[in-house]
């Protein structure tokens, strides 16, 4: 197999790991970790795409003809910022959930509804998931 493609296998592996952690884990912090692994896999996908065989770092130099593509790196820089913001917000929410519910296990958390109507809405929502 083309060794250049190993990156993409890594991407798939990480993507599946992240998604599995997101779905299978009840702990909210672990869910956020899973989300991060999932996002990082996409970052690697982009960065790998910027690789060009025998390409040098994209700094103008008289001795170099082939340069790697710097654009994916710049794009991913933005995506990393977005991911950091999401993680920060997610963790902040976990802290407040812990304070309000006394637990961060998704399986034990449920909407505490005053009237039966909202309870019903959550049951329907769970069954549709």
């Amino acid at each position, binding site marked *: 197999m083309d060794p250049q493609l190993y990156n993409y296998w890594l991407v798939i592996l990480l993507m599946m790991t992240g998604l599995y952690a*997101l779905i299978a884990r009840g702990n*909210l912090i672990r869910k956020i970790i899973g989300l991060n692994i999932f996002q990082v896999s996409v970052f690697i996908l982009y960065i790998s795409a910027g690789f060009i065989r025998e390409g040098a770092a994209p700094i103008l130099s008289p001795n170099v003809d082939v340069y790697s593509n710097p654009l994916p790196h710049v794009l991913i820089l933005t995506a990393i910022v*977005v991911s950091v913001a999401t993680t920060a*917000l997610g963790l902040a*929410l976990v802290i407040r959930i812990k304070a309000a519910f006394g637990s961060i296990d998704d399986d034990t958390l449920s909407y505490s509804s005053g*009237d039966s*109507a909202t309870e019903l*809405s959550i049951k329907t*929502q769970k069954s549709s998931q």
Partner: protein
Amino acid sequence: MIAQHAQILVVILPLLCAPLVLLLGKSRIAVWFTVGVLSVNALLTWWLLLQVLTIGTLRYSLGNWPAPWGIEYRLDPLGALLQVMIASIAAVMAPFLRKLLAEEIGSSRQYAALVAFILLTAGLLGIVATGDAFNVFVFLEISSLSTYALIAIADKRDALLASFRYLIVGTIGATFFLIGIGLVYILTGTLNMDDLAVRLPEVSHTNTTQIALIFVTIGIAIKAAIWPLHAWLIPCYSYAPRGIVAFLAALSTKVALYALARFLFGVFPLADMPIGSVLLEILQLLAIAAMLIGSAAAIAHSNVRAVLAYSSVAQIGYITLGLALATSAGVTAAIIHMFNHAFIKGSLFMCIAILATGSGKHALESLKGLGHRMPIVGIALLIGGFSLVGVPLTSGFISKWFLITALVQAEKWIWIVAVLLSSVMSIIYVWKIVEAVFDKSDDKQVRSYDLSVDIPIVLLAAVSLYIGINSSALVSTAEQASKWLLGMP
């Protein structure tokens, strides 16, 4: 000078306004400053719409870099129409939010909510303004992050859980979208949407393009709450601060649907792609399921916010169905309903927010007779409810008329039955709300008026009525937009 840069100013103004409001903090000026900026912004979008309708698509190159290399902002009839919708609703709702937020989350955190609200507006406007696929992702996340924060700011623990679960699902959606964009970038080397539309046909048969289309569609479908990816929407609409829900229900899913339309028709060469027609068929089926299941669930609930949330799922079904027909008439119907439903649901959630102000409860029982006590809100609720059903002389009738015409043209007879069935079901759940709100048993006939909330509600309800009576301007804009979107000049 301003005319030349108006296109980008529409996004930049709210982005700049947000940190300033943060600095102004708790002072009274903050709110009126926001209202001022958002009003100027709304005027700018109206001016841009007139420009687009007279001279055609507007293009703006950021930093003067020419299009495929630099980032380009492009405003077409559809984008201009949606910008008018977003900016106008945001400007009208800002004074409304001032009162509701102060009541619900306290004046000490009110300004933080205001900042998130402005950022959300900027994000939504940005999604529509840009012509660059990656920019769509960034603006999608700006608006989503502000939405998570706005939901969690409610002083209820259920809101925290709703926000967290939405954060997880929403981020998966955005990341799926990012994967799709990455794949088309790897294939074509460009992120400009117009340039992608030129280059993708060459590779339309490759597996990568098919997979990119699937990733993009699922990613956006999560944000747009297309059934069965709507599960996040119900708790979010049920537990977020009352004023915020009105804004979210009016705009956030519509803008995601706009992005879907843009990518399905403006970027991917659907007609040449092996899975193109299959995808549209699946979207049609999902839309039908959304209409029927959404309306049925709305009937089953007795919490007003849950009823309206499920009704939104059904209404998103109508829009998706129009888009998935992929005919000129279908897309026109979808655009008209996108516009109308934003005003209908916005005004309905505003009415409910005001009616529930005293008790803070949303069970139908607790709303009994309130329509008599607040007649203006009650009448606006009636107009919104009738629009939702599609009674003639309301905007909802125009939407349904065009959708059914499009279905007749496409000869989808069974779908017509489903649309009519869903409309009948909407009569039932709207009637439940109207019956409770105008219940006669309430004998406290003290009428109360509050201009700062009544005026925004009246304005939104008036739009529904006006379009119901004179829809020619909206229809001609929507027709132009759909022609442009489907590449039929």
